[in-house]
């Protein structure tokens, strides 16, 4: 079942009616973008800075509305829905900088912020906050002020703040970009756990190829258009295409690719280190 359907989305930050100028092709942030996300799926959206990934993220929870084209979330047209909060309840957005998205000065009160806005009963909020904090492994920090936490911990609190609203889908806009390697790993394993155990649909926007490897599906964007999409295996096998658009591929994939170019007999390009080690062992022994 499709949870999100984007049909020919076009968007520009220049308002055509207001400025009375025709939008040049170059000003289009999104240009004819179409994709779907199934319920329970883990989709990674890859691309350079400024390729339109974040703009897509803001469309998914109706922060922005498409200039042309349609975006359906759970069969609701985001542009026609009068109450943007119906969409925002279903699709939670986690932003890049954890410091700038925490509102309260105590962890549990911050997690409660979303449910409080939805007007949920105090007792129910308590239950949801505790569950959300446990889901991201931050329960024992519930009475701490956020500025005493590490970047990864803060980002996990931000994720808890979103899942306390019980959305069916969370969109994460480069959640690991400002974190150290340890924080990145904490956040990534939390995201995967939520997807696997709670069945929450995840759209992960990133420019780290390594993070996209574990997704069910990868969508690659460049210059406001969709370049390619498919399973990680399919996408990262198109090494030439990705390189032509100056996009990275995971290190092991590149190793396999280069070895194959040198004439080593490798049939499929590995995405994971252990898989690659096995293949190399096969070739060498």
């Amino acid at each position, binding site marked *: 079942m499709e949870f999100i359907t984007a049909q020919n989305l076009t968007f520009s930050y220049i308002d055509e009616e207001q400025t009375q100028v025709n939008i040049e092709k170059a000003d289009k942030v999104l240009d004819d973008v179409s994709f779907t996300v199934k319920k329970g799926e883990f989709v990674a959206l890859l691309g350079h800075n400024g390729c339109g990934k974040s703009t897509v993220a803001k469309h998914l*929870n109706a922060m922005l509305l498409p200039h042309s084209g349609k975006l359906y979330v759970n069969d609701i047209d985001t542009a026609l829905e009068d109450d943007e909060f119906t969409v925002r309840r279903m699709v939670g957005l986690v932003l890049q*900088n954890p410091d*700038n998205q925490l509102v309260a*000065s105590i962890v*549990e009160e911050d997690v*409660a912020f979303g449910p*409080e806005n939805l007007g949920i009963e105090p007792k129910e909020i308590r239950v949801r906050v505790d569950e959300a904090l446990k889901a991201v492994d931050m329960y024992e920090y519930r009475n701490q002020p956020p500025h005493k936490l590490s970047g990864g911990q803060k980002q996990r609190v931000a994720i808890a703040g979103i899942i306390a609203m019980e959305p069916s889908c969370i969109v994460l806009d480069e959640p690991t970009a400002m974190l150290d390697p340890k924080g990145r790993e904490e956040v990534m394993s939390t995201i995967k756990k939520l997807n696997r155990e709670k069945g929450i649909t995840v759209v992960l926007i990133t420019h780290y190829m390594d993070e996209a490897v574990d997704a069910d599906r990868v969508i690659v964007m460049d210059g406001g258009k969709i370049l390619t999409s498919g399973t990680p295996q399919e996408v990262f096998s198109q090494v030439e295409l990705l390189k032509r658009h100056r996009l990275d591929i995971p290190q092991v994939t590149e190793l396999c690719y280069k070895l194959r170019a040198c004439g080593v007999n490798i049939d499929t390009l590995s995405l994971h280190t252990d898989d690659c080690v096995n293949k190399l062992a096969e070739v060498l022994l």
Partner: protein
Amino acid sequence: MRDIAFGQYYPAKSVLHRLDPRVKILSLTAFLVLVFCTSNFYSLALVATTVLAIVLMSSVPLRLYFKSLKMILFIVLITSLLNLFYGTGDPIYQFWIFKVTLSGIYNAIFVTVRIICLILVSSALTFTTSPTDLTDALERLMKPLTIFKIKVHEIAMMMTIALRFVPLLLEETDKIMSAQKARGADMESGNLIARVKALIPVLIPLFVSAFRRAYELAVAMECRCYQGGQGRTRMKQLRLGARDYVSMGVILLVICGVVLCNVLLPSVR
């Protein structure tokens, strides 16, 4: 820069810590008025003992109280000295143009004890109440003001956000200062004007980043369905318990005591 005693909250588990913050704020207000209603030594002694009892009950180290007293020591000294020399009546002791009278001594004692009491009670409130509890209680106490079209929820939300971002901006100031020093900015030498001028390269980036943060926070709040105070619930409900009623009773007793002392007992001054 980071050492600014922020909020001054001292976490502990005393009775005072567990009191409803609304009760604490109202009691503090009552006390502030009460301190100035003492007209003789009996009532002053009653207020002072109550304040001491509150201080001892807070299980906050006394040195913290001394610290907050130290900051106003100068004011206490000046005012008590002024009072000492401006009394009326027969001088007890006199040299040059200064004369010390009995009423001057009494006035000085009154002023000193009053100011110390004020500082101690208000510190007791900030030491035992977390900033979030304080804003929360203020929001609820100010609720009746909504009929005068005062945006109580918005004010409280602003206070919450300010509390959240003050440590962040302090940290950021530190970083910007280091960055500018690394580029050769001189912030320690020169006269006052030169130093104020040296702060400009720190303040401009700080403001720019504060605005960017504000914008991002607004986006994040919208993502979390924030739509103002209407239809909003709170996770933490404030409920008055037995100890809150007891403490309100005690405060009422003290108020009655002060009034009785003032009316019935002879004024010593």
